[in-house]
């Protein structure tokens, strides 16, 4: 009975969306906004990766909201799990195998470096703050898996988190007073396209986002791992 009702509901959704999709043919150019971005993105922001110029340039305010959401999730996860935690009850986990530990010792700095590379080159190559941050977090995940006793210092990760986000907010405020008097306007020189030091404030923001996302995701993993039963 229940599943019939669900299937009817899903059928309605499917038909509705299917009908709507007839009006949106696949693979056809149709947007004025997107065309404008690809055509004048380099001129406006100086980033050769147009997705980056949309994420941190044209629609940077969305990105500010987005890192806020990640911040809320990391904070909230701590708050939700904090209620049930008994300190000092951490289960003794067997140490990981020698191969994992040794491999991790080699891989950890490499992964950190790779993550940093991704978010520093966000305006030139695919990738950016979010992807780089995720790589950094996966480096820490590796450490958690291989060396069960190790923990990231709460104070440090929280400080990085807050400072990364504050950098973003404050850079925007600087744009309000210095540049074209718009919030988040790109007030730094754009430089030569396709060079590392180019694209105005975009690399700075992406580094801040990368550090922040990395510490947020690490915080999420840390919170989940620390919850002991």
């Amino acid at each position: 009975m229940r599943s019939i009702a669900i299937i009817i509901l899903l059928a309605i959704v499917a038909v509705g969306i299917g009908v709507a999709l007839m009006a949106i043919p696949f693979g056809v150019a149709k947007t004025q906004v997107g065309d404008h971005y690809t055509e004048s993105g380099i001129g406006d922001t100086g980033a050769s990766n147009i997705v980056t110029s949309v994420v941190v340039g044209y629609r940077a305010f969305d990105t500010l909201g987005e890192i806020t959401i990640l911040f809320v999730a990391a904070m909230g996860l701590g708050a939700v799990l904090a209620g049930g935690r008994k300190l000092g009850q951490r289960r003794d986990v067997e140490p990981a195998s020698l191969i994992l530990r040794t491999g991790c010792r080699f891989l950890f700095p490499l992964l950190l470096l790779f993550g940093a590379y991704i978010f520093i080159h966000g305006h030139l190559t695919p990738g950016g703050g979010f992807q780089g941050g995720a790589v950094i977090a996966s480096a820490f995940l590796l450490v958690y898996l291989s060396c069960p006793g190790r923990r990231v210092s709460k104070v440090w990760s929280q400080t990085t988190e807050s400072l990364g986000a504050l950098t973003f907010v404050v850079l925007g405020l600087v744009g309000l007073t210095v540049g074209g008097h718009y919030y988040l306007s790109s007030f730094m020189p754009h430089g030569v396209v396709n060079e590392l030091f180019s694209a105005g404030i975009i690399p700075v923001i992406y580094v801040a986002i990368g550090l922040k996302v990395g510490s947020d995701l690490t915080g999420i993993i840390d919170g989940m791992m620390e919850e002991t039963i």
Partner: protein
Amino acid sequence: MIIFVSLLVLIMLVAAIAALIFRDLLSAVIASCLVSLLASILFLFLQAPDVAMAEASIGAALITAVFVIAIRRTDRYEE
């Protein structure tokens, strides 16, 4: 090319249905990880390398790890 893409989509849908059917939550999570992974390959075909990277690193790797941790702390099998 289009045959290959269709095959990928087919495998992706099968993996999603597997995630629906499996009673073992760990297997279901691995199936949903496969869905994310295949989706990230499709993003690559759709000329979205940024998104493919994000989906592969966040959607496929990190979330699966978080799922696995959560399942280890709770029950592995669906009643």
